[in-house]
């Protein structure tokens, strides 16, 4: 019997449905959560199944609604809030950072805030400066928040279930380009433990650490590196706060080479945190300086002419790994033209997005 496969969006949908069926305190709210587009399909049908008391629209008042959700969490509700773009949660940073993240600690552990904030990372088709950032490093910087970055449909479902069942505020960042990916997803309830990275591919030559959409690019990179005789080990972070780094350290101790891929701007990125941990704990095993593959340190341009040069690809990962191996490599952007249409994941993906 083959394993059942689902889209990432459907995996999320199933996680929500299961949690709402198992626990009637779970509610779902946010701009567009109950409407026909259903947060790219991830909430479709839930209103019909669970009713308007538990699945509802909110005003465009993100900061207030986050506080409302926090308050509801304090008295026993388990809210899930959706943001169609991560940027739409930016007005709520006060409630997220000052309130939700600190509540448990600041009151001596007497209360907790079991709430989930789903945020979607936009990208492609000219999403531009205010619709395509990934601020996971910000959130990871704040003590008291859990920060999840599921890369596969399996993890999307399992991590969302873990998030909803967790007693803490959780930020879960879903990359828009992952929504149509397809992969094995078991039926029913299961959890992916928060904090454990996932060994996607074993190898002995170079360690590649990635998360979210970059894990797809890294998977492609691992395949082409194999063609060149380089055995790369690929670790997907899944969760960056908390993060058990034992697997990464063990891998680097074996390979001596590290490439970290991060779909965020370079400066103070989460990639820097990974490299720091490795340098602190396994410097003596490094055969070459670790490499960060990130977005440049500029806001996202809207025009495809520039976004074609903005996003690193599997080619960049391959080039970096080869450099670490002392093999010849070339600049993957060299063959890119401004007219190319690289700002979409596949040709079926058309505007307006």
């Amino acid at each position, binding site marked *: 019997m083959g394993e059942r496969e689902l889209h990432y969006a459907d995996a999320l949908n199933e996680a929500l449905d299961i949690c709402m069926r198992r626990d009637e305190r779970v509610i779902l709210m946010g*701009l*567009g959560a109950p*409407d*026909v*587009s259903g947060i790219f399909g991830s909430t479709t049908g839930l209103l019909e199944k669970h009713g308007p008391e538990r699945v509802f*629209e*909110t*005003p*465009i*008042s993100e*900061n*207030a609604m986050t506080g409302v959700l926090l308050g509801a969490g304090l008295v026993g509700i388990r809210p899930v809030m959706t943001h169609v773009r991560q*940027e*739409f949660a*930016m*007005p709520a940073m006060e409630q997220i950072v000052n309130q939700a993240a600190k509540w448990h600690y600041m009151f001596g552990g007497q209360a907790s805030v079991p709430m989930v904030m789903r945020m979607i990372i936009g990208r492609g*088709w*000219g*999403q*531009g*400066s*205010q*619709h395509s950032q990934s601020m996971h490093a910000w959130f990871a910087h704040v003590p008291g928040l859990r920060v999840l970055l599921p890369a596969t449909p399996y993890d999307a479902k399992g991590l969302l279930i873990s998030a909803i069942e967790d007693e803490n505020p959780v930020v879960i960042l879903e990359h828009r380009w992952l929504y149509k990916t397809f992969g094995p997803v078991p039926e029913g309830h299961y959890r992916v433990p928060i904090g454990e990275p996932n060994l996607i591919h074993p190898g002995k030559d170079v360690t590649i650490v990635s998360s979210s959409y970059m894990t797809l690019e890294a998977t492609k990179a691992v395949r082409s590196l194999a063609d060149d005789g380089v055995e790369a080990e690929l670790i997907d972070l899944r969760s960056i706060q908390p993060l058990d780094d034992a697997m990464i350290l063990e891998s680097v101790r074996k390979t001596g080479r590290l490439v970290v891929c991060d779909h965020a701007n370079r400066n103070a990125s989460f990639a820097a945190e990974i490299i720091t941990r490795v340098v602190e704990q396994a410097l003596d095993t490094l055969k070459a300086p670790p490499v960060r593959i990130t977005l*440049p*340190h*500029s*806001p996202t*341009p*809207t*025009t*495809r*002419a*520039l976004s074609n*040069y*903005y996003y690193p690809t599997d080619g960049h990962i391959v080039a970096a790994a080869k450099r670490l191996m002392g093999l010849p490599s070339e600049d993957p*952007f060299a063959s890119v033209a*401004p*007219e190319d*249409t690289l*700002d979409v994941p596949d040709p079926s993906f*058309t*505007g*307006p*997005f």
Partner: protein
Amino acid sequence: MFRTLLRIRRVEERLVALYPEQQIRCPTHFSIGQEAVAAGVCAHLSAKDLAMSAHRSHAHYLAKGGDLKAMVAELYGKATGCARGKGGSMHLIDRSVGFLGCVPIVGSTIPIAVGASFGSRLLGNSATTTIFFGDGAAETGVFAETLSFAALHKLPVLFVCENNLYSVLTPQSERQPHGRRIVDVAAGLGVPGEQVDGQDVETVFDVAGQMISRIRDGGGPGFLEFLTYRYLEHCGPLDDTRLGYRPPGEFEDWLERDPVRIETERLIAEKLIDAKAIERLESELALEIDDAVEFAQASPFPERAEMDASVFA
């Protein structure tokens, strides 16, 4: 004013037609159906006066005197665009005519515009500032916070709320308490105003004219809530009436009150324009739009070095 109204309509209709060619590759929000507000309000503003908008801003940019060629080029992501291609449809700017910019984060330009007005006052100039936004933006925290500040300092700012009943697919009734008018909320925050028909450009013109003179005379901030309607989908060029989120008949009722049609019929009835003159105007506009589209298509994309340019001033 009629020219502005018709021009905005024809420009957007052309963009709608071009969108499927996949050369305009950015989220694009059309204001077809809502043009009378921009045309009527901006008719009172000079290039010295300032204006800002949000994600649905083509009409405001054009009515304020923004450069059509630069706008179309911006949508095409070209180096000749008003934001050098880096912004796209949701980030239009033309400082030469006082259009200070627009962004897609709902509500975010309301305080920025008020800041511009505050700054103008500090600099001692007589410019007014107009901020265009939707009914949804009235739900943001910054809306209330900013109106209070504007009222406190009696700033020369005009708040223009285009109430098109919807925020994406959600009607106002699901987001705001029943029976409460946005203009009354504004009044409660210290910014008095009126709720007005936004489909009749002459009504818009008259009401805005009185309000802007009051503001210019030092009367403090004013608020206009225009009742209007968006014909196309929230984002993109398609008719979305089949999605079923609009009550049956609503769209047709609003079509009856199409701003371009109302004004055309009035001008004809009053013999201020005839079929010939309209034809002439239409062909002028068509040529101008052809030109702008050709300009955009022929323009180069930004060079790769533009990526890091202007991260810092």
